[in-house]
Each structure stands twice: as structure tokens, then as C-alpha cells.
């Protein structure tokens, strides 16, 4: 094993499609390490005795162990370590904000670049997928029926864990495809749908049945589902777009990011008219917001033929919440960043189309509740920006449909469901919840983790024999 200092400094670059080429196609941008690169990168890990990286991971993936197995060439062992705490590594390796989680704490990062943990995670997971899905042993059926509502990362994970333990799981999904944000939100160029399909395939092999086009709250209520199933897991995410409520927001050419991305990803509008759903993006596009959703919208707009795409963000570069790699990729592809800028109106013409946005410059004041400096409008700094398409990527809230006839299910301000983070239990007996519906828009890894936690508590609940009275906290599970 090489121990030279030179290795500690730089990580192995990620092979990627050329920016000019990829800005015109929807294929995956980051191409992945080959085996040699992966082993070289794995060798940079100094195998800390008390690994900080693990503490930075929301689900404590066994990072040093999987990396060690990888560099020793024991790939199945690496897979096993990796999947011990993370059921969706091929997805998380691609979309986790590693730079603010595991990699942020990697000791190598103090003097050089941290180990590229996410890229190694992806490599190991992709290797496994190429071997063909191996279905683990499934416990004999215990006859307990569980309804999992929503097929995003939280629901998929809960369903998989429960099926392995012998539960009979039905996933009820509102849309016609499984995956939640993974299919309708995150674009193909960042997360190929084949990767998501492999996870779904795995669940099917475990015996999970997925029932599409079932909108809970409309077709059945939560109250009804509690009669048909012994346990219900709510993983319906945070799918309701927040708009700005500024004048002109309903003009033609103003999209919520959800609409733009759903048309493109779920409905394949980029391939219109081979696929029936159209999408119209003009030549000059402003995307408001700077999270992952905004980056995905901006980069999708470029790929749909926009000549100039701006990210309009009211704070500064330091506060950008998107993954570092997405910002980098967006810049390489030519997306223009307008920081400290906030739209105050969308301008239109007689036909109801967008002609521009009126913006105001911002300055940063004192820190607000989020700990970030509060943007304050600079008086007299208004200006107009000529655009024909505007995409609002300002965040999302839980969709309240699922709460129709769900008496007893307590909700917090902002529309999230109240649930114990350690168990996933809600205030309604035999109903668990996890993912964005509990936390508000967050991350794939935390939704995955919440699905796991709930599955394990559901199992504990039924293992306990005759489960006692429902209390929404952990200590109430009889030992």
C-alpha cells in the first residue's frame, strides 16, 4: 500500500462528459470510476481508527470498512459493508451532498482533498448492479400486511426492509411510475432511471407489490387503509411547489420546477413528439433559487435548447444549498449565476407570455433563523432582465391530499407530519411516517434512513407479541 504524502493531497478526478457535448444531451454527466481509479482512490484512505466520516453520514455508512474491502479486491464484502446501513448506495453515491456530510469531516480534507467517498460508494454499488441483482434470503411470510404510501426513497427502503423480514407489503403510489423524486425530479443526466429501476426490480423480487395510480386521500383514505392493513407507512414526500406570489406569476412561460422537471423526466417531453407530452422552454431562462432543484431545472433548460440560462438567487455564493458538484457542472455548462438578486415581478406581453422579470439587488444582513445571513433588498436597485421563461425553484411542502380523512394524525406548522425521529411513529396508531413528509424537503439519504428506522420499529412493534397501547415514543415498545 502506498503511503506517500503526494497521494494524500488530490483525489482522483471523476471522468465526465465534455461540458459542450453534454449540455445538448440527457445522458449521465459523471461517468464513474473504473476499477483502477477506484482502487487508487481507495488507497488514499488512511483508515482512521476513529473515523470522522462515519459521524458525518446521516445513516452511519460503514465507510472505512467498505473502502478497505474495495482496495483488497473483495467486492462482495465491500457491497455488504456498504449496504449494511444504506439500501440505496447507487443512488446516494450519485446524489448525496457528500461535501457537507462524510467528506466534510474526512481528515485528509484538512491538508488536501478528502477521499472521494461518494464516488467510491457509486463504484461499489454499480459493480454490484452489473453482477445482476442478488436477492437475499426472505424470512417466511408472517402474514402481517403493511401499506407503504409513496414510492420515493423512504417508501422503497421501508418496503424492502419489511419484505425481507416476511411482511406482506403493498406500495401505493399516486403516479404511474415508481421512485418519487428520483424519477420525476432528478434528471437522467444526474441519476439514470435504469439505476432506480434496478432498485424497484429488487423490491419486486422480494415480493413487494407496487400499485400505481393510487392517490391516497382520494381513492382510499388513511382511515380506510388502517382497516385493511395492520401497519401503514407514510412516505409521500414534499411534492407541493411553493410559488413566490409575485405579480405575473401565472403568465405563460412561468413554471414551477416540479412542472418543468415532471414534464421532462417522468413524461419524457425532451423527446416530444415521440412522447406525447410537450414542454416549451424559450431562449432566455431565469431559474429562481439555488438548490439542487434549481440546478436541475437550469441544466434541463439548457438541454432543451435554451441559449442563456440564469440562476437568480437572493443570497450569495456561500449560501448556495445545492451540491457543490452540481454548481460546478452547471457553471461548466454555461449557466450564469446572478447572486444577491431577487425577482419582484414577472413581466408579460398582451398574449400572456413572459417578457422578463423585474429584480431587486440584495445585501446580506444579520443571520436569520437558518443561521444564514438574511438577504435585505437594496432600495432603488431595481432592474429588468429580459427572459421568456421563468422557473420557480423555491422549495416544496408536503402535499396535503393524503391527510383527507386522516383524523388523529397530527401535523406541524408547514404541513409536515409529526413523527418521532427515532421510530417514525406518528400520533395515529399503527401509522408510521418518514422522509420529506416529516422533515420537509431534505435529502435522499435522510429519507432512506427514515424508511429504515420505521421498518425496524414496525418490526419491533409486531415482534413484541401483543403490542400494548400506542404511544408515539420508543420507550413504549415492550422489550
Amino acid at each position, binding site marked *: 500500500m502506498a503511503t506517500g504524502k503526494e497521494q494524500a493531497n488530490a483525489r482522483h478526478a471523476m471522468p465526465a462528459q465534455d461540458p459542450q457535448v453534454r449540455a445538448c444531451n440527457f445522458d449521465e454527466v459523471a461517468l464513474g470510476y473504473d476499477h483502477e481509479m477506484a482502487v487508487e482512490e481507495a488507497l488514499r484512505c488512511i483508515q482512521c481508527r476513529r473515523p470522522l466520516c462515519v459521524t458525518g453520514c446521516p445513516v452511519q455508512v460503514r465507510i472505512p470498512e467498505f473502502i478497505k474491502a474495495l482496495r483488497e479486491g473483495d467486492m462482495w464484502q465491500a457491497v455488504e459493508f456498504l449496504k449494511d446501513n444504506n439500501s440505496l448506495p447507487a443512488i446516494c453515491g450519485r446524489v448525496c451532498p457528500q461535501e457537507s456530510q462524510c467528506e466534510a469531516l474526512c481528515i485528509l480534507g484538512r491538508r488536501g482533498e478528502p477521499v472521494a467517498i461518494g464516488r467510491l460508494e457509486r463504484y461499489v454499488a454499480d459493480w454490484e448492479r452489473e453482477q445482476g441483482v442478488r436477492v437475499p434470503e426472505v424470512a417466511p411470510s408472517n402474514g402481517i400486511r403493511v401499506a407503504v404510501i409513496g414510492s420515493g426513497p423512504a417508501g422503497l427502503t421501508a418496503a424492502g426492509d419489511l419484505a425481507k423480514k416476511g411482511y406482506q407489503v403493498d406500495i401505493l403510489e399516486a403516479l404511474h411510475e415508481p421512485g418519487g423524486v428520483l424519477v420525476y425530479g432528478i434528471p437522467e443526466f444526474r441519476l439514470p432511471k435504469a439505476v432506480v429501476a434496478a432498485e424497484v426490480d429488487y423490491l419486486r423480487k422480494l415480493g413487494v407489490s407496487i400499485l400505481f395510480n393510487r392517490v391516497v386521500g382520494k381513492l382510499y383514505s388513511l382511515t380506510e387503509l388502517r382497516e385493511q392493513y395492520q401497519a401503514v407507512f407514510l412516505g409521500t414526500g414534499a411534492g407541493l411547489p411553493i410559488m413566490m406570489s409575485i405579480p405575473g406569476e*401565472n403568465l405563460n412561460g412561468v413554471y414551477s420546477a416540479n412542472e418543468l422537471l415532471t414534464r421532462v423526466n417522468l413524461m419524457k417531453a425532451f423527446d416530444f413528439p415521440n412522447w*406525447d407530452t410537450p414542454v416549451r422552454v424559450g431562449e432566455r431562462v431565469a431559474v429562481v433559487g439555488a438548490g439542487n432543484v434549481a440546478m436541475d431545472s437550469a441544466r434541463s433548460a439548457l438541454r432543451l435548447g435554451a441559449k442563456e440560462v440564469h440562476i437568480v438567487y437572493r443570497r450569495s455564493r456561500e449560501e448556495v444549498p445545492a451540491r457543490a458538484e452540481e454548481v460546478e457542472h452547471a457553471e461548466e455548462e454555461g449557466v450564469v449565476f446572478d447572486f444577491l438578486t431577487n425577482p419582484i415581478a414577472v413581466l408579460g406581453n398582451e398574449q400572456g407570455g413572459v417578457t422578463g422579470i423585474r429584480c431587486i439587488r440584495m445585501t446580506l444582513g444579520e443571520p436569520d433563523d437558518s443561521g444564514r445571513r438574511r438577504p435585505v433588498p437594496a432600495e432603488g436597485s431595481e432592474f429588468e432582465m429580459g427572459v421568456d421563461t421563468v422557473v420557480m425553484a423555491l422549495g416544496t411542502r408536503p402535499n396535503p391530499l393524503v391527510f383527507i380523512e386522516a383524523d388523529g394524525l397530527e401535523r406541524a406548522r408547514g404541513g409536515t407530519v409529526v413523527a418521532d425521529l427515532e421510530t417514525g411513529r406518528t400520533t395515529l396508531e399503527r401509522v408510521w411516517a418518514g422522509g420529506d413528509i416529516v422533515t420537509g424537503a431534505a435529502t435522499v439519504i435522510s429519507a432512506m434512513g427514515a424508511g429504515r428506522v420505521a421498518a425496524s420499529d414496525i418490526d419491533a412493534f409486531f415482534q413484541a407479541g401483543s403490542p400494548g397501547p400506542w404511544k408515539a415514543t420508543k420507550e413504549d415498545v415492550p422489550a
Partner: protein
Amino acid sequence: MYCILSKKTLTPVTTEYVIEAPEIARKARAGQFVIVRVHERGERIPLTIADRDADAGTITVVAQEIGATSRRMKELEPGDSLASLTGPLGRPTEIERYGTVVLVGGGLGIAAIHPICQALRDAGNHVIAIIGARSGDLLFWEDRMRQVTDDLIVVTDDGSYGRKALVTVPLKELIEERQIDRVWGIGPAIMMKFVSLTTQPYGVSTIVSLNSIMVDGTGMCGACRVSVGGRTYFACVDGPEFDAHQVDWDLLFSRQRFYADEERRALDLYEENCKAIPEQEDAR
């Protein structure tokens, strides 16, 4: 699943489908709709649930062949299945005992007012319906409408069937003649606007069902945004029924037209493909 059990041509441009959908049939209420994908690459289009039979486990929808998707749907035969069917979506009509109510259905809107008439009549209202179309050959369901109403007025723009009038003419007469407690108007957006303008001076509460462009139908995308009383609503979850007198009609018209070019293109392509088939057969 989602099997088409029967298909009936109602007019040269409208077709009725009875679809197997037991769960939806059980749950659906008047005023709700489904989202249909005709084939695997299809778009998601909303169709009003025009009738349901919970015992048989079926719903009835009526589609107008205006674009490529509805033309494609027409190609399906009994025994074929839709790629997907989601519902029941939207808020049901608020059914109460209002007294005397008038329901105006224009063109395809006739199918949409049918279940509402039925529910209102079951609730003890005196139900009057006005159904209309440009010409007699575009009218349908006159018999079915008679069964769910106390009075039925039939009009056509050109007088080729029933009375020669726009739907708003008998509506105005009724309001002037007698106490009307509530009006529904469902049909082309322009017709709904005129129904609204007709009732407004008399202060008769009027409900319209806004047919904005939709994608998911569950409140997730906002494509269906409408403005009512100065506030933005998502028609698919907050509606589709709204207070007619508060609707921003110009916004609705313009948003409905946003994809007109693409729709035209899809239709042209579809027609070309249709033409290509007989030509190939000739060649053989």
C-alpha cells in the same frame, strides 16, 4: 386493468367509453375527474367522470377527438386497456338542497353536468338543464339527460335541432321568469364565461368547472394554475369547480392555449402516420 368494456360513437367528434375501474367507481362523486394515459408514451389528460356504476365496477367518460391523444384513444377497442387511469381527482361538487338549479352543458360539457344533475336531483332539487351545441349532430345524451332532470332545454347555434339559440338565452329567460338558486355552467371556456356574464347581473351563484392544462392532477406541478378572486389556485386539487363570477377568464384562455403549436404538431404527425398506413397497404 383499466380495460375498455365498451365504446360508442356519440357524435362525429365525441366518443363514450365504459371503463373497468371498480375502486374508482366506488369512490367517485359528481364533479370529479380521472387522469388517463392512453398508451405508454402518452400524455396525462383529464377526463370528467360522466357516470359510474359501483355495482358493475365501471366508470363512463366521454372524450372529444380534438388532439392526437383523444384520436389515439378512439383507436382503442373494447378489450383494450388504457396505460393508466388515476382518480377520482378534484373536489366533488357541493351537493345541497338549493331549491331550483340550472345546469348548462355545452358540447362535451353535457357529459360533465350529467352526474351533477343526478346528484342534485337525488338531493331534492328541482333540476333544469340546458344542453347545447353548434349543430344537432354534435348533441348527445338527450335521453340520459331527461332521466336526471326535471326540465330539459335543448338548443343549437344553427337551429338544426331544438331551439335556435345560444345556451345563455334560455338561461337568462329562466332567471327572469323564476327564482333560480344556483347555476352550473360547464363547457368550452368561452361558453362558461358567457354563462357567468349572464348570471352576474342577477346575483345568482354560479359554478364553473375549469378545464386548465394538467399534468399530474394531484397538486404537484401547478400547470393547472387559475386565478379566482385574485388568488391563485391549482384547479386539479382546489377545483375544478369555482365561483364563476370571480374567475380571471383571460388568464384561463391564455394558459389553455400555451401548447397550441405543439398540439397542432402532434396532431399533424398523427394524421401523417395514419395516412402512411393505407398507403403502405396499397403498395402491397
